[in-house]
């Protein structure tokens, strides 16, 4: 017995060690270049060590460039493009910021900045997220669940926020309209340290007219706003899902948590009109409330939002398996409504969550309390619930639940699940602002995690299409709709744990460099100002040879340079999956599937193929396969590759 335990402990240790090593590799280098953390514009950012992006005047002469290089003791590693941007590399050790301040004084330098790495597996420094002082453990399991104890849940029962943040942390053109009980305010000012940035938090209207403006007296709106978009990476408190998004505060609930449909209608109209009146802005509405019964004005409000492309994320309700509340229940008739049920720290639908065919997706809402729905009907909020901001003064939730502390505290409910989804929808719109509500809903549904315990196949009344996965939602967006990564003169990195499969009609913008590193990190960089991946404006794809020297792989491109087969996607799959491969030259190709005993199951390709990129769909149902591991082989001339895939019924 002892031997068995010893072996198990060793295995766990080895697994953890291997994982740590993998993480370490990911953080240390980009394409063989070193990463460094610095403070830039009051933000902690990661940069490529020793590299400076510089913008020069259009008429700069060769003599001036030589002077610049001599003065800065740099070499030019990327020529100045037509917009005037180039990349310098320090030839000797010097602080990048000091160099920037020096060369900015030169008359032909218009701008200079570090070569930033955006969101390098970004783990924000908020103490309750990281589990650093004053926190004693990682409180926010809903964002990243490593089985931290408490609550000791299932690893991965989270929305995969850190991987999502590697792609985007949101942007301020996406507004999260929080229709709730308000925001912490004292003496007419935003008062919570994680919700006090006046440039981020837009004070909307008080639709309930309780004489207090949008000041949160009940305490719920503060918690919801924090989940969706708390100020993050500020060395304080908690992290929010889409932390670079702005928040539009609209009050629809009074100090006792009561509101009216009339207020809801006004609030939706206000949020939608905010988008209409601010071209370039997008709005996602979060509404963590509702009622059993509806009115015509509710449907009118939803239709109005739908007409102007505004998504409403709504909680299903907490009546212990009762029907889905309104307005969430409108998801069956309006595709701009996303109905959200709640899961716990073990990926299980909660006892309290309302369920039904209207549920689109589930998200972490907190466990609640054992027996919350059966005798003795006890409600106590603690560490297996969702941790977020609460008012920094007494609030009325404390009357019935004094364990919910001021400043930060735990709450549970579908109320807490919805803002995880709304925040993710904001992340999606941040990388592709042209998406319509039905597309956002499709992305969330198609990228959700479906676990065996959820049933044979999605959707289900309890989980909808599965549990929210923010990272997969962004990846799905990039693959199927393209993404606008609006960063000036910087690199955008998209770490992928699977191959990126771009839809065939999605092109990269011109002057975009897209590469995949050995560990499947995708780097996108552009010197035309705005980085675009996908979309319809792309004309060509340019691979910078210098950039990919140190890289092992590249995406399938117009010039198919190598024989390559991608990992099937999705994997595991049920029942269909797609296998992609590329050929550098015309060849006779066979693509076959085998079972674990080496028996041939299917021949998917068996013919001459021209050079190019191909996709083949494989359906396990067609061959009546049992769940298990299968192999697929690609043979073309002398080239032969085997890969493994898993079918789970």
């Amino acid at each position, binding site marked *: 017995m002892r031997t068995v335990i010893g072996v198990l402990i060793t295995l766990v240790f080895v697994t953890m060690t291997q994982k740590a090593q993998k993480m370490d590799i990911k953080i240390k280098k980009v394409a063989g270049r070193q990463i460094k953390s610095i403070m830039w514009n009051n933000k902690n950012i990661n940069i490529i060590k020793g590299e400076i992006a510089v913008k020069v005047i259009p008429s700069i002469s060769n003599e001036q460039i030589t002077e610049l290089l001599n003065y800065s003791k740099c070499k030019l590693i990327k020529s100045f493009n037509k917009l005037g941007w180039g990349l310098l590399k320090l030839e000797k050790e010097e602080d990048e910021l000091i160099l920037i301040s020096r060369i900015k004084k030169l008359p032909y330098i218009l701008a200079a900045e570090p070569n930033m790495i955006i969101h390098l597996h970004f783990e924000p420094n908020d103490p309750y997220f990281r589990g650093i002082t004053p926190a004693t453990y990682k409180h926010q399991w809903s964002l990243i669940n490593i089985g931290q104890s408490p609550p000791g849940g299932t690893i991965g029962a989270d929305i995969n926020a850190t991987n999502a943040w590697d792609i985007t942390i949101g942007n301020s053109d996406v507004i999260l309209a929080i229709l709730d009980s308000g925001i912490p305010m004292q003496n007419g000012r935003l008062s919570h340290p994680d919700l006090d940035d006046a440039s981020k938090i837009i004070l909307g209207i008080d639709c309930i007219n309780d004489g207090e403006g949008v000041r949160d007296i009940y305490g719920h709106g503060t918690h919801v706003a924090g989940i969706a978009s708390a100020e993050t990476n500020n060395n304080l408190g908690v992290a929010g899902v889409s932390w670079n998004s702005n928040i539009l505060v609209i009050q*629809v609930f009074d100090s006792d*948590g009561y509101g009216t449909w009339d207020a809801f209608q006004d609030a939706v109209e206000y949020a939608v009109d905010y988008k209409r009146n601010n071209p370039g802005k997008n709005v996602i509405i979060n509404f963590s409330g509702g009622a059993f019964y509806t009115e015509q004005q509710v449907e009118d409000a939803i239709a109005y939002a739908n007409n102007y492309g505004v998504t409403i994320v709504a909680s299903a309700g907490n009546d212990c398996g009762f029907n889905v509340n309104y307005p969430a229940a409108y998801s069956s008739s309006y595709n701009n409504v996303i109905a959200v049920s709640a899961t716990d720290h073990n990926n299980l639908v909660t006892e309290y969550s309302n369920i039904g065919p209207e549920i689109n997706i589930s998200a972490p809402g907190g466990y609640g309390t054992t027996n919350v729905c059966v005798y003795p009907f006890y409600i106590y909020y603690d560490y297996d619930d969702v941790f977020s901001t609460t008012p920094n003064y007494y609030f009325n939730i404390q009357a019935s639940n004094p364990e919910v502390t001021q400043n930060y505290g735990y709450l549970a409910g579908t109320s807490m699940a919805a803002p995880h989804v709304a925040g993710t929808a904001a992340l999606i719109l941040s990388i592709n602002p042209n998406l319509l509500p039905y597309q956002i809903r499709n992305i969330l549904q198609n990228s959700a995690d479906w676990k065996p315990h959820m049933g044979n196949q999605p959707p289900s009344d309890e989980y909808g299409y599965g549990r929210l996965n923010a990272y997969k939602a962004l990846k799905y967006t990039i693959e199927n709709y393209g993404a606008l990564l609006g960063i000036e003169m910087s690199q955008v990195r998209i770490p992928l744990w699977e191959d990126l499969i771009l839809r065939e009609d999605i092109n990269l913008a011109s002057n975009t460099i897209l590469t995949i590193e050995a560990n499947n990190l995708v780097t996108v960089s552009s010197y035309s100002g705005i980085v675009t991946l996908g979309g319809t404006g792309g004309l060509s794809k340019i691979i910078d040879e210098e950039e990919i020297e140190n890289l092992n792989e590249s995406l399938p491109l117009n010039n198919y340079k190598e024989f390559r087969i991608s990992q099937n996607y999705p994997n595991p799959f049920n029942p269909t999956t797609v296998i992609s491969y590329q050929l550098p030259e015309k060849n006779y190709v066979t693509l076959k599937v085998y079972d674990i005993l080496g028996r041939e199951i299917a021949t998917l390709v068996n013919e001459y193929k021209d050079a190019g990129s191909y996709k083949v769909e494989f359906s396990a149902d067609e061959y009546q396969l049992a769940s298990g591991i299968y192999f697929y082989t690609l043979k073309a001339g002398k080239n032969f590759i085997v890969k493994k895939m898993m079918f789970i019924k």
Partner: protein
Amino acid sequence: MNFQKIFLSLNNKIIFLLLLILNLFSCDVLSPDKNEQKKNSEIKTIFLLTDTTKQIKKTFRSGEEFYMIFQLINNSNDTIIYTLGSTRPPIIFTITQANSIVSTSIDGYIFIDIMKSGKILPNDTLITEWKAPNTPAKNPQIVLEPGLYRANVLLPKLNVKIDSIPPLIFEVF
């Protein structure tokens, strides 16, 4: 070898005995008579319909307002605890006709989806009234057409058992 078998067998027996003791102990701790939802005869309910002068009635004119009143009287020595899935009031009234909801006491209102609990202390009474058939937030307001209707009470989850509240049938003429 034999010694090992005996030892293992003994070991299994000890484990079995421990499990048996644990099981018995668990049964005692979770015995139904101690933990079952209590049905207490000292808890009374009153459900009635009155006119606006609080006179009990079961017939009303079309367009007339009337009260639906429910009382949960806790004459026991124990606190009654109720739980809700939202900030809604603990008692909801509905008016139905042919199994369709015509009006409710929360029409036009919305509530926060947060679980909360409330208490009815010993010798205390939870009194809920609704001036039917509209609420201030109901839009548009309705007039009950002549006919037979049912008045119903929806209770929250209670930690005590009480008899179900039969609907009251009333007539509008």
